């Protein structure tokens, strides 16, 4: 490889890593929020990503109510609106299923409800996958936008080296960053965000403050599902998907959340970004089939060297 194409490849991997990484980051925040606040292990998170993709698809394509926005704007508005739709799905799942195996109900029991959560969320995952198969069928879908096949070309200034910025991914990345910032501001500065953090920190004490912990957990679960769904809607603009797409990504989400430091909601974003980065860079050296293996090599390295995650606190003062 000559220098010129090396520079070009590295820079392209870099930009692809950042754009895809930011979308992964948003996806991980959804899972991180659920685990960070409720300590619920949600194996159905990948299927909520899938639901986000299909929600966006049905909003945008065919006779969808957003069809009037056209193929350039519609898919991104659809992705954002997938958030509130899947929020409702998540809140209902919590009300009828998750709340029975989590929260104050299981606090202090031997496993804190984790076994129950594992089985319930795996069950939800299977039902959604196979239910999706019945409802949507198995042909791969995409949310068509001409932007996914057009790129901004930036000359690097070294020979003919050029960086290609895919327009769809670029907009998706910008939306992902905006949603992540909005969530950060909500968690940090609003009364709801502080109450969510208080309910996560010490649910019993939060109850003493008059905070309805169960209600806030339901909100957290809905938000976590909705945020992952937005990431799903964004990915749907450049990726073909089917009812089983969630499985590939739930692994990426868990790696991102663990890398970022379990319990750190914004850390999950950086974890997801790291995963996206590693995945894109490994494409320079390895065949595509090994990209996910590379993620786990880096994952294991980080877990070995920094077991608390990149952004987790190693210990707290009692």
């Amino acid at each position, binding site marked *: 490889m000559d220098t010129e194409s090396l520079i070009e490849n590295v820079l392209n991997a870099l930009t692809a890593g950042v754009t895809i990484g930011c979308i992964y980051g948003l996806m991980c925040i959804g899972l991180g929020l659920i685990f960070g606040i409720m300590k619920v292990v949600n194996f159905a998170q990948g299927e909520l990503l899938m639901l986000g993709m299909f929600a966006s698809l049905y909003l945008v394509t065919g006779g969808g109510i957003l069809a009037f926005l056209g193929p350039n704007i519609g898919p991104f508005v659809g992705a954002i609106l997938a958030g509130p739709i899947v929020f409702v799905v998540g809140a209902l799942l919590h009300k009828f299923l998750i709340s029975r195996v989590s929260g*104050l109900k299981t606090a202090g029991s031997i496993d804190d409800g984790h076994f129950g959560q594992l089985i319930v969320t795996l069950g939800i995952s299977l039902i959604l996958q196979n239910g999706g198969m019945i409802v949507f069928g198995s042909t791969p879908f995409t949310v068509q936008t001409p932007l996914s096949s057009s790129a901004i070309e930036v000359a690097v200034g070294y020979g003919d080296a050029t960086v290609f910025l895919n327009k769809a991914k670029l907009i998706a990345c910008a939306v992902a960053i905006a949603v992540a910032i909005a969530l950060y501001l909500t968690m940090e500065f609003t*009364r709801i965000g*502080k*109450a969510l*953090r*208080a309910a*996560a*920190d*010490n649910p*019993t*004490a*939060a*109850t*003493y*403050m*008059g*905070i*309805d*912990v169960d209600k806030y957990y339901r909100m957290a679960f809905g938000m976590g599902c909705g945020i992952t769904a937005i990431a799903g809607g964004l990915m749907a603009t450049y990726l073909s998907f089917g009812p089983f797409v969630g499985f590939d990504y739930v692994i990426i989400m868990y790696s991102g959340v663990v890398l970022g430091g379990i319990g750190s909601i914004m850390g999950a974003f950086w974890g997801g970004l790291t995963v996206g980065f590693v995945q894109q860079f490994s494409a320079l050296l390895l065949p595509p089939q090994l990209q996910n293996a590379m993620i786990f090599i880096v994952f294991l390295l980080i877990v070995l060297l920094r077991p608390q995650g990149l952004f987790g606190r190693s210990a*707290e*003062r009692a």
Partner: protein
Amino acid sequence: MLEVSNLSVSYGGLRALTDVSLSVAEGQFVTVVGPNGAGKTTLFKTISGVVKPTGGKIVFMGTDLATISAAQRAHLGIAHVPEGRQVFKTLTVRENLEMGAYPETGRAKWTHTIDRIHTLFPILAERAQQLAGTLSGGEQQMVAIGRGLACAPRLLMLDEPSMGLAPAVTDTIFERISQIHKEDGVTILLVEQRVAEALELSDHGYVLETGHVVLDGPYETLLADDRVRKSYLGLT
């Protein structure tokens, strides 16, 4: 104001409280003393609603507490400063106090109460932006009490505020509790193992042993009781 009658609580077949009756009048300072495992913390948790009673009744300002959820009770003006402080470690001191002011009344009086809290505990103003988990035990207790005050409570329940604190810090804490009672007119229900100091502050005391109220009366009566003098005050 608070009327606990014939309250019984069991944990999986184990009796924690049996037929406990207790009453706190508006403006009173009431102390519950007793050895470890007597059921003092259980009594508080039952009043706050995180533990369900097996029998009996708790009425606060005319409301039967069995009819409302645990979270709703803070909105009636019951503040619970729990045993072992239980501050929100990952929130800043300021955010802890803001969470104390979560109920409507707390928010309405926020500018006034935050000033008052900072007057009582000036260190909390200094440490406002620090994470509560990084504070010393005494400072965390101040956060816990300040957080309780932030909802502008009618009844402040304090569960062993002296636990694990240096004697000098304990003195400060007791002094502040007395100030909150006298100057702010907040009704106080206190659980303490430091019996002498606690009874000295209070109008009325209850002695709780293995889930039963074995004795109650005004400060003078308790102090004159031989058992109290022997077992709790170390006097003969």
